[in-house]
């Protein structure tokens, strides 16, 4: 019997290694796997490359990982948020490298990795600073920039519910990068609010099929945890 659900969040991230590249789902806080990130901090892995839309804000999630000095490089579209002071401090100190990628190129490059493409000609960024030094080409009268896939060693994803095979459903806009990151990482680790019986997710409504998921862990939602 295949059961991808592990008993503790420590087990979920046990095989992280120094120098790993890690995709982290979320758009702001929505869909950010805060508890998995806490487990990464506890684990101790360092020299990490983080691929995410943002570079953390406040004191939790990616911000906490940066504060703990575990991050060597961030690949993201929008590092400058209100309260992104931990990223800013490290960045200004030259302690963290930034690869700034337009959000649509970030999504498309992650999808290219998950789909086995070698490179894509994308319309976004042509003629801008972010395309400097990159190969360009005019195709059918329009200009494109050649961009390469972004793979990762791990993806940390937050979903609403999953089953023991790893099928996932999400909740509202917390879906965001989860499904495409799950497809692009060598190992996809998912925190879910609920582990449900196999067969209870509607096969027409499964958003991430099990093939893209390696490990699940149940994380009791914060509010519930306080109440319990």
């Amino acid at each position, binding site marked *: 019997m295949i059961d991808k659900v592990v008993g503790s969040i420590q087990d979920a991230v046990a095989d992280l290694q120094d120098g790993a590249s890690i995709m982290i789902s979320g758009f702001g806080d*929505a869909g950010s796997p805060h508890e998995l990130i806490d487990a990464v901090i506890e684990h101790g892995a360092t020299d990490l490359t983080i691929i995410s*839309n943002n570079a953390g804000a406040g004191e939790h999630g990616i911000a906490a990982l940066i504060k703990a000095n575990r991050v060597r490089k961030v690949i993201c579209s929008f590092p400058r948020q209100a309260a992104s002071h931990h990223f800013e401090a490290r960045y200004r100190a030259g302690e963290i490298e930034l690869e*700034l990628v337009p959000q649509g190129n970030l999504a498309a490059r992650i999808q290219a990795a998950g789909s086995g493409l070698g490179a894509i000609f994308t319309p*976004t960024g042509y003629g*801008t600073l972010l395309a400097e030094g990159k190969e360009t080409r005019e195709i059918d009268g329009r200009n494109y920039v050649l961009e390469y896939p972004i793979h990762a060693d791990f993806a940390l994803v937050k979903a609403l519910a999953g089953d023991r095979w790893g099928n996932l459903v999400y909740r509202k*806009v917390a879906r965001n*990068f989860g499904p495409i990151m799950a497809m692009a990482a060598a190992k996809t680790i998912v925190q879910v609010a609920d582990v449900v019986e196999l067969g209870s997710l509607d096969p027409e409504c499964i958003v991430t099929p099990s093939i893209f998921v390696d490990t699940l862990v149940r994380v009791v939602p914060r509010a519930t945890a306080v109440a319990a």
Partner: protein
Amino acid sequence: MQRLNREAMAARVAKDIPEGAYVNLGIGLPTMVANFLPAEKEIFLQSENGLLGMGRAPAETDVDWELINAGKQPVTLLAGGSFFHHGDSFSMMRGGHIDICVLGAFQVSVHGDLANWHTGAPDAIPAVGGAMDLAIGAKQVFVMMDLLTKNGESKLVKACTYPLTGLACVSRVYTDVAVFDVGAAGARVVEIVDGLSLDELRALTHLPLEQILEAA
């Protein structure tokens, strides 16, 4: 001169959005356009973080932090709305499926070049988000901005001096004193507020502007 305030500018943009349009409203000032879309018209608002059919802000008691817009403000979903992942969301935006995108800007050139992501200040932390995708992907890109900076310099320019977001992508510019069409033919004045002459507008912008008559 009857300078338009932010609400009046948003209302003016809203007037140009037809029923049935798929629209992305950028973060900041453009978000206000939603408040002026007529309730009797069905207009579809897309937000790049994965929803289509976005409704107004919820009551405070109904706030759901997994139902937010790209500006990370709580919103609602209309009946008929849908959720999708970032890949599909940016396919909508980059694949030519969005009819109108409304963006703020630092500068727009008479040929429609857009600068709205980076001041170019050497100490600024760069952040681009979806700005470059929105600039190049929609069928029409509208810009909303005050015509002049606080120092009185025109933000409608012959050529942008700020770092570009996209080339030749803006079709129309809504400002507090005039509406312009921009593009291959240069900038043309569509509307001027009462009390401002075309010559005065030329003087403000240092541009050889002509006015065009728009079909009402």
